[in-house]
């Protein structure tokens, strides 16, 4: 393999991995705090992508690239803010009505409502935006590129990677250093004890959903910007892969989830490089199984005794 191809693919993997990482963060947070495999999370990501699509095409009426960097930055700031806040609210609403009433129910009950919510979100988007894929305006011009070791790197990709990195570190800081972050970690570990510290469990869980869903929303915006095409079905498998990423990294561990996301990006990209793309999903899951067999806590997770 030539160096330029290696560099190019490495960069491709970083970009793709960024999207998985953003979705995986929310997955891991939600799982960490209420141990729910939130199958609707991938669809929250999808709704985020459509919200961005709507913002860009209807109120902003954009259809092509925006070349003025200041304007571009302004637009990006606007759509990321609006989409993340909106998706955060959507996440909180979902938690409130579909998961919270079942917090003491048998474990499988919320798993099923999660899938029910996934269907509902998909169908709503399908009815509102139609079932065909939609073209998202690629506001980053495709020609904005630079050369690196013979590879052609797009500023769009760089932006996506840096944005993901920034959000990952911001989340780390939030969970690791702040009072609310501590409350989240305490709640995740021992809900009753956290209550005895004065933590409002319901509010903490709602905040977790808000942040996780906002990050998935950011992932959705990034997805549309990068691929220029979205559809109401893109959420499920992306969500599944992101969940795999979360497990690979050690569920509940935000660094792990991010690394897991990048890892899956690499598996997919390099299986494409070696002519094995149609096996990539099988490879991802095979790696998942192997990791769990040999290191059940995931790559960065701490060994933990699990609730039966």
């Amino acid at each position, binding site marked *: 393999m030539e160096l330029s191809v290696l560099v190019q693919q490495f960069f491709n993997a970083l970009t793709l991995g960024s999207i998985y990482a953003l979705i995986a963060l929310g997955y891991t*947070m939600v799982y960490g*705090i209420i141990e729910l495999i939130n199958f609707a999370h991938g669809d929250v990501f999808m709704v985020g992508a459509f919200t961005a699509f709507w913002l860009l095409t209807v109120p902003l009426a954009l259809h092509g690239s925006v070349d003025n960097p200041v304007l571009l930055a302004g637009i990006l700031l606007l759509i990321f803010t609006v989409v993340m806040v909106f998706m955060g609210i959507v996440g909180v609403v979902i938690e409130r009505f579909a998961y919270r009433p079942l917090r*003491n*129910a048998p474990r499988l009950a919320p798993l099923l409502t999660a899938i029910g919510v996934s269907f*509902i979100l998909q169908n709503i988007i399908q009815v509102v935006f139609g079932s065909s894929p939609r073209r998202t305006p690629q506001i980053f011009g495709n020609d904005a590129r630079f050369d690196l070791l013979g590879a052609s790197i797009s500023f769009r990709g760089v932006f996506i990677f840096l944005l993901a990195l920034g959000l990952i570190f911001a989340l780390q800081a939030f969970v690791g250093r702040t009072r609310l972050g501590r409350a989240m970690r305490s709640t*995740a570990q021992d809900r009753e004890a956290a209550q005895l510290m004065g933590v409002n469990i319901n509010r903490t869980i709602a905040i977790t959903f808000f942040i996780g869903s906002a990050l998935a929303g950011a992932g959705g915006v990034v997805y549309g910007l990068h691929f220029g095409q979205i559809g109401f079905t893109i959420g499920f498998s992306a969500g599944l892969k992101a969940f795999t990423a979360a497990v690979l990294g050690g569920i509940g561990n935000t660094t792990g989830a991010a690394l897991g996301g990048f890892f899956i990006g690499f598996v997919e990209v390099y299986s494409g490089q070696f002519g094995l793309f149609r096996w990539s999903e099988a490879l991802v899951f095979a790696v*998942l199984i192997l990791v769990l067999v040999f290191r059940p806590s995931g790559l960065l997770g701490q060994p933990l005794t699990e609730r039966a």
Partner: protein
Amino acid sequence: MTIQDDAERRDLSSGDRMPGGLAPVRGFFEAHRSISVIVGMALVGLALPLVVMLPPFSTFQAGAAWMNNFTLAGVYILLALGLNIVVGLAGLLDLGYAAFFAIGSYTYAFGASPFSGLHIPFWPMLLIGALMAAIFGVLLGAPTLRLRGDYLAIVTLGFGEIVPIVFKNSDTYTRGTNGISSLYPPDLLGYRFSTIEILPFYIVMLLLVTLAMILIYRLQESRLGRSWMAIREDELAAASNGINTVTTKLLAFALGASTAGLAGVFSSAKLTFTGPDQFLFTVSFTVLAMVVLGGMGNIWGVALGAFILYMIQSVLLKGLNQFFDAVPVPILSDIDFVQYQFLLYGLALVSMMLLRPEGLFPSKRRRRELHTAAPGDDAAATPAQEAGGALQ
């Protein structure tokens, strides 16, 4: 039901030691159970074709289509009964159950199609398909069953994703995405089943479901069944009571898988076709929903849950347009309900779970657990200090 539950409780509390003196009594009730399953299934089997000849049903769709639906519902009942062994009895969450369905189905395709050149009769293929699925169940289970709870669920989910991909990408051996067609339909004493005569398939399906229910009831009441429940309740305690948890869990996996294999053989023989798109995650999830909705651990409940959910998916949601066209409400007849299938299905799932999180027909044992374990307060949900997740 009560008797079985009491027996269950007694045996659990005494640490899985079978009270020898009770054996004759148990024997009687086991025989009784089998008879009641046979009688029940016979009644249902007779009633269904008759009921659909009556007006509301007969105008909805043709009798033959009803019978076809019932037969296919039987496939899902088998699947749900099998998954119930794994999830409901042994408490192991399997999110990739469709893989075993696929293995059974492809086993039949390899054993009885022009593609492979073999024509092993249907009846032994039922056993072979079940066996193949069981072998894969063990192969998957052996290295992974020491994982607990959700980790096992994730491994099975991965396995469930891999299996259809392997079938789809192995063109030479499976005809890839085209699937294998022209499978031989079953023969019985020279009579060849035909794809347009549903009644023979219906009868075979009734027999298979009856047999599966009897066997699973017997399993549930056996030493093995009690070991499963002991593991479900408290694996550590079960292990310290001398239960070999690995073997016991593997058996649950293998038996659950073999039921799916059976369903796979039947389904592909009936359809005379098998292809990789039939075994996607949606199938695993649907079967899981059937088990949970029916009431985990309750065999009749699970069977009924499977039947109801299948009918909702394949008849009701598909027929809403017809139904509302006949209703004299203009708005309703103008709506294309096919478009809203997912919305309605999603709403149905969510509302059913919110209203009855323990399922429609929870086993008495489960119901008791629920009512003692849920003081209705957020706090009491996780007494365990080392709860599974935890953010880092």
